[in-house]
C-alpha cells in the first residue's frame, strides 16, 4: 500500500515547485534557449543604437528646451530628471516592449500541455489552484530574469560611458526592475487565462491581440458616448503606460495599484475557469 499519503507537500510548496520547473524548462530546452538568444540580440540592438544614441542627445541641455517648446514644459520633463540618461531611455522603451514580449513569451502556459494531455499527469498530483498559480509564478520568474538581464546590460552600457555612475545606475536599475515586473504581471495573468482556452501558443497570442484591440475599441467608444465612465479604461492591462512614460524613479510607484489590482482580478477569473475546465 501507498506510504506517501501523509507526506504530500502543501499547495504553496507545490505551486513553488511548479514555478521553479517552468523556469528551468524555459532555459533547459533548445527552443527556450533560441528564444533567449533572440531576446538578447534584440535588446543588444535596442541598447546599442536607439538607447545609447538617444541618451547622448537628451544629455545635451538645448534638447530639454527643444522638447519643452514642442510638447510643453510638463509633458516629458520627468525624463530629464533621471540621474542616468540611459535609464531614462531604457524606461521609455521597456515600458512598451516588455508587456509586448511578455504576451508572446507567456502565451503557452497551458495550451500545448492541455492539448497533449500532459496536464492530466500533473493534475492527479496537485490541485488546480497550484497548477494555475504555479504556471503563472513560473512565467513571473522568467519575465523577471529577462528584465534583470536587460537592466544589467544597461548598467554595463552606462559603465562604458562613465564608471562613476555605478551607484545611481544600481538604484535606478532596482526601481525599474520592480516597476517592470509589476507592469508585466497583468499581461502574464491575461495569457494564463487565454492559454487555458487556446490549443497552441500561436492561438493564445491571436486571442490576446483580438482581446486588446476589441477592448481598446470598446473603451474608446465608451469614453466618447459615456464620458462619466472613464475609469473603465483602467480595466485593460497597460492602460496606465502612457501616463508612466513621464515618471521618474519612485514617482512611478503611484501607478503600481493599477496593474496589481488588474492582476488580482484576472487571476481570480482564471482560477475559476481552471477549476471548471475539462482537462
Amino acid at each position, binding site marked *: 500500500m501507498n506510504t506517501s499519503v501523509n507526506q504530500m507537500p502543501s499547495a504553496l510548496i507545490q505551486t513553488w515547485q511548479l514555478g521553479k520547473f517552468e523556469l528551468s524548462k524555459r532555459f533547459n530546452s533548445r527552443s527556450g534557449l533560441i528564444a533567449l538568444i533572440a531576446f538578447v540580440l534584440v535588446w543588444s540592438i535596442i541598447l546599442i543604437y536607439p538607447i545609447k544614441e538617444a541618451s547622448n542627445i537628451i544629455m545635451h541641455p538645448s534638447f530639454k528646451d527643444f522638447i519643452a517648446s514642442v510638447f510643453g514644459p510638463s509633458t516629458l520633463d520627468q525624463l530629464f530628471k533621471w540621474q542616468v540618461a540611459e535609464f531614462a531611455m531604457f524606461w521609455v522603451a521597456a515600458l512598451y516592449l516588455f508587456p509586448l514580449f511578455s504576451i508572446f513569451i507567456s502565451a503557452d502556459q497551458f495550451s500545448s500541455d492541455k492539448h497533449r494531455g500532459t496536464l492530466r*499527469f500533473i493534475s492527479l498530483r496537485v490541485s488546480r489552484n497550484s497548477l494555475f498559480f504555479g504556471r503563472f509564478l513560473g512565467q513571473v520568474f522568467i519575465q523577471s530574469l529577462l528584465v534583470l538581464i536587460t537592466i544589467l546590460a544597461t548598467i554595463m552600457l552606462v559603465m562604458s560611458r562613465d564608471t562613476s555612475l555605478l551607484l545611481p545606475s544600481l538604484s535606478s536599475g532596482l526601481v525599474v526592475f520592480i516597476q517592470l515586473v509589476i507592469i508585466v504581471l497583468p499581461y502574464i495573468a491575461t495569457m494564463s487565462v487565454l492559454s487555458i482556452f487556446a490549443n497552441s501558443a500561436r492561438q493564445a497570442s491571436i486571442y490576446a491581440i483580438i482581446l486588446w484591440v476589441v477592448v481598446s475599441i470598446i473603451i474608446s467608444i465608451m469614453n466618447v458616448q459615456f464620458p462619466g465612465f472613464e475609469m473603465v479604461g483602467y480595466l485593460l492591462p497597460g492602460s496606465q503606460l502612457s501616463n508612466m512614460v513621464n515618471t521618474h524613479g519612485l514617482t512611478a510607484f503611484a501607478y503600481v495599484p493599477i496593474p496589481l489590482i488588474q492582476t488580482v482580478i484576472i487571476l481570480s477569473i482564471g482560477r475559476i475557469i481552471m477549476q471548471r475546465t475539462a482537462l
Partner: protein
Amino acid sequence: MNLIECTQLSKNYSGKNVLNQVNISLKAGAPIALVGPNGAGKTTLFSIICGYISASSGSVKILGESPNSAKLRGRLSALPQDAQLDPDITIISQLMLFAQLQGLSKAAAKHEAMRVLELVDLAQVVHEKPKSLSHGMGKRVSIAQALIGTPDVVLLDEPTAGLDPANAKKVREIVRQQSASSTFIISSHNLDELEKLCDQVIYLENGSLKQSLSIQSKQNVEYLTLVMTETDMQALTNEVSSFEGVINVTTSTDKQMIIEYSHQHGFQLETQLLTLFAQHQWQYKSILKGRTLEDTLFS
C-alpha cells in the same frame, strides 16, 4: 472501504448521454477490466474518476474520497488515453517533478524515477526526451509515471492500444508484477489480454453498465471450450450432447465448441472427450476450462 463506488453516475455532452446512471462498486485486489465498444463511456468514466471532468449527476467515491480530493493525491494515478509527456523535456526531469510533487525530496525523487523506469525496463532512456522514443516506449514511460509512489489505484486507459505484441506483453507483465501493491483498473478492447490479467470485468455499453462479473467465480454450471482442427463438428456435437451431465452444446465458430455442463468432480468429461477423439481420430487444438471472456460477455 470500497476502492471505487459510483452511484447513479451520469454524464451528458451537449444533450447526449455518455454515461447513464451507472452504479459500480469495486473492491481492491486483482486487476479489474473495463470493457465496452467504442463510445461506450469507458474513457469518460475514467476521466470523471480522475477529476479531469465533472459528472452531470450522481456521485463517485474513490477510496472514500471525491474526485480531485487532496487526500487522493499520490494514492490514485492514471495512464490517460493518448496523454503524452512534454516532448521537449527529459524523461528524468518530468518523472522527478511528479515524484517531488508527491512529496519526495530531490534525491528520493530521482531514486523513485529510476525505480519506476527500471520496472518498465527503460532505465536506459532516462536522459532522453519523450519525442525520441517509439510509441511503445513512450507508453511504457507513461505507465512508469503512474507507478510513482506505489499508488493504491492505477487506472490504465487502453494501455496496449497501438503497441506491437512484444511491447503489449511487456505491459501485461508490468501490470502482473505490480498487482500485489496496487489495484489496476484496465480499459481495453483486447479481451484475450484482459482475460489473462483480470478477474472482475465491468462491461459498459451505450453509457450503461450491462454486466459486472467475475471470471473465476465458482458456479454450479461449468463450461469447456473446445477448439478442433480436423473434425466433423456435427458428429462431435451429437456425441457430446449425449454425455451425462452436459446441458448444452453450442458451436461458436467453425471449429470452436462450448460445452455447458453441471459441476463434476474430477475430469470425467475431459476423459470422455479424449476417448472420443481417439476413437474417431479427431484432432483438437485446445481444451479450455471455462469460456473465453468474449464468449462470456457476448453469448
